[in-house]
């Protein structure tokens, strides 16, 4: 066996012995990230459903009690996203009660439909029908001057902008629907044909509809973003980068206790020792990632969450994971070389990983971050790792789709290791 390989293997074995004896450290490395991803996936489950699977309470003060208001509320209720509450303490809600209940956090949205709303829509429909019918000499419907009427929306101050938009657009859609229906009824009435208005209207509105279909690859079901699909890879990668804490403290303690000096006294051992150390922690990181995936595949469904889908290219995933592991380990090696004390290095290492995770899209997908931060994501290796994981696990991509991410991770990792080695070399000369 070549001497270099012998030295590398000896270092890997030595690191394994040290880790095996540090049961607490091993549990922190392997169990804590598992707990983290379970907690994060559960906590973020509702936000990730993005109001598509969640039903919201909707307080309604219907002062109009008309067909129009009934059509609007029926539409909202049938959408499945809203549960309409018209009464409180066996009394119909009014504007004051709606506002009071929202302030108490009883619901997130309140709607007040003013008296005369339907009459106003009918009047407007009559006006339009008259102007169209006039041109065709079909007769006239009664009209009066228009008045401003508004359906008023109230939101709990804590409700998110996406909820506000969702309610606004849903309401707008049903107002358009109801108004169009009224108009068609008026025109039909003027034309003298009262038999087909309803059917014709439904035909118009069902001619072109919107239907979502999941992207599929090679006959396999493609995953869609959900709490598990985002959180498991994202937090697994975050956990992998937390390897910087043990590596950094490990390196600094070796210098402090003197064992690093012993290694410096052995000719041609430095590089092999560094490679062995990086390889060992890469293996730990990789193992950590697959344990997290196992949690996503088998434990998450038991907790009522969707199961993690791993994509269709296990080899490509392994390459990506090794790239992430190399970058994470190299970062730890770099910090361990540059910091003098554990007290300096550990908080910096941990906080820097949290910051890199934040800008890298671990908490929130990068697409949802502000534009300025979105560009900053490119400097975060966690972003590249997560982006690669999404390519493989969500979009059904393969090796060809992740080479940019793997290249960035490997180049960055190599730079960090080289800078760490250089610093270690310089340290002895510059004391």
């Amino acid at each position, binding site marked *: 066996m070549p001497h270099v390989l012998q030295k590398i293997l000896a270092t890997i074995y030595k690191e394994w012995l040290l880790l095996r004896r540090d049961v607490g450290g091993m549990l922190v490395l392997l169990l804590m990230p598992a707990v983290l991803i379970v907690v994060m996936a559960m906590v973020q489950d509702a936000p990730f459903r993005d109001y598509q699977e969640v039903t919201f309470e909707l307080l309604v003060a219907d002062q109009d009690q008309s067909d129009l208001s009934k059509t609007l509320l029926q539409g909202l209720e049938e959408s499945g996203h809203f549960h309409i509450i018209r009464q409180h303490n066996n009394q119909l809600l009014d504007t004051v009660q709606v506002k009071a209940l929202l302030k108490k956090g009883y619901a997130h949205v309140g709607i007040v439909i003013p008296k005369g709303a339907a009459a106003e829509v009918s009047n407007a429909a009559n006006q339009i029908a008259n102007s169209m019918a006039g041109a065709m000499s079909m007769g006239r419907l009664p009209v009066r001057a228009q008045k401003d009427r508004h359906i008023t929306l109230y939101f709990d101050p804590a409700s998110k902008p996406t909820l506000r938009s969702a309610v606004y657009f849903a309401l707008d859609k049903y107002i358009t629907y109801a108004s169009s229906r009224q108009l068609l009824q008026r025109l039909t009435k003027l034309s003298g044909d009262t038999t087909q208005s309803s059917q014709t209207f439904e035909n118009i509105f069902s001619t072109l509809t919107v239907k979502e279909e999941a992207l599929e690859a090679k006959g396999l079901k493609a995953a869609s973003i959900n709490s598990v699909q985002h959180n498991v890879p994202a937090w697994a990668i975050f956990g992998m980068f937390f390897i910087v804490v043990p590596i950094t403290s490990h390196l600094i303690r070796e210098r402090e206790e003197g064992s690093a000096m012993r290694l410096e006294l052995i000719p041609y*051992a430095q590089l092999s020792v560094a490679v062995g150390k990086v390889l060992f922690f890469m293996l730990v990181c990789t193992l950590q990632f697959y344990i997290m995936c196992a949690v996503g595949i088998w434990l998450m469904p038991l907790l009522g969450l969707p199961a993690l889908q791993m994509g269709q290219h296990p080899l490509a995933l392994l390459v990506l994971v090794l790239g992430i592991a190399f970058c994470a380990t190299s970062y730890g090696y770099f910090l361990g070389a540059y910091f003098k004390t554990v007290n300096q290095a550990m908080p910096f290492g941990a906080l820097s990983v949290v910051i890199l995770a934040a800008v890298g899209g671990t908490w929130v997908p990068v697409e949802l971050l502000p534009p300025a931060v979105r560009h900053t994501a490119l400097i975060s290796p966690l972003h590249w790792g997560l982006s690669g994981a999404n390519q493989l696990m969500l979009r059904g991509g393969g090796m060809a789709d992740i080479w940019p991410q793997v290249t960035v991770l490997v180049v960055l990792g190599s730079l960090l290791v080289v800078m760490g080695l250089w610093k270690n070399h310089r340290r002895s000369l510059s004391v």
Partner: protein
Amino acid sequence: MPDAAVLINDLHKSYRGAFTAALNGLFLEVPQNTIYGLLGPNGAGKTTTLSIICGLFGASGGSVQVMGYDTEKHKAEVLRHIGLVPQKIALFGNLTCEENLRYFGRLYQLSGSEIKKRIKDLLHLMNLEKHGDKNVSRYSGGMQRRANLIAALLHEPDILILDEPTAGVDVQSRALIISFLKEYHAQGKTILYTSHLLDEAEHLCQAVSIIDEGKNVLSGTPAQLIGQTPGAAKLEDVFLAHTGHSIRD
């Protein structure tokens, strides 16, 4: 083959941010196959000198040769000839003594059988054969010192450099270490060592050099130095006469 195991010529060293130089033009010649004592008060530059000889620090000026090899140009060759026993216990505390030695043996590119044999012999020599499978962190101070010494001997160096090897150890461990050093020297090896225990140095060393403030003060055999110093009966008297009684930090 060079006559001097270690040859130091006008060595200077200034640490970054320090007010005074650690070494200020030091000269030293350690002949081969001698036990040589490098003596001096705290802060005299002893550890710095040993560290530069071993290539752990770079010098600010001057040159150091080990067995004819320049320490800066031929560091690997120098390290092959040297075994350093530093003041710190330069071992992995959470590994057993045997695991430490096996690991260092692999890094020295020794074969499995060589490693096994040397570990067995050295543990026996240092009276640690019953404790080889215990974590070094659980050793007593004396045991740790002896294990530290074994780690420096694994590759059978020609020059053994020891930085206060008997500091803080009990009488039995000290006697064992001193006895071993004499035995190792008898095999034709060179020993360069520092100590504050001047009685020990007087009886062990064939030659000593007293240094202070990074410079040579006096060199010779202990008997010569005692003879040259008026009123001196032992090496400690020589030491105090030339380095003064003021306390050093």
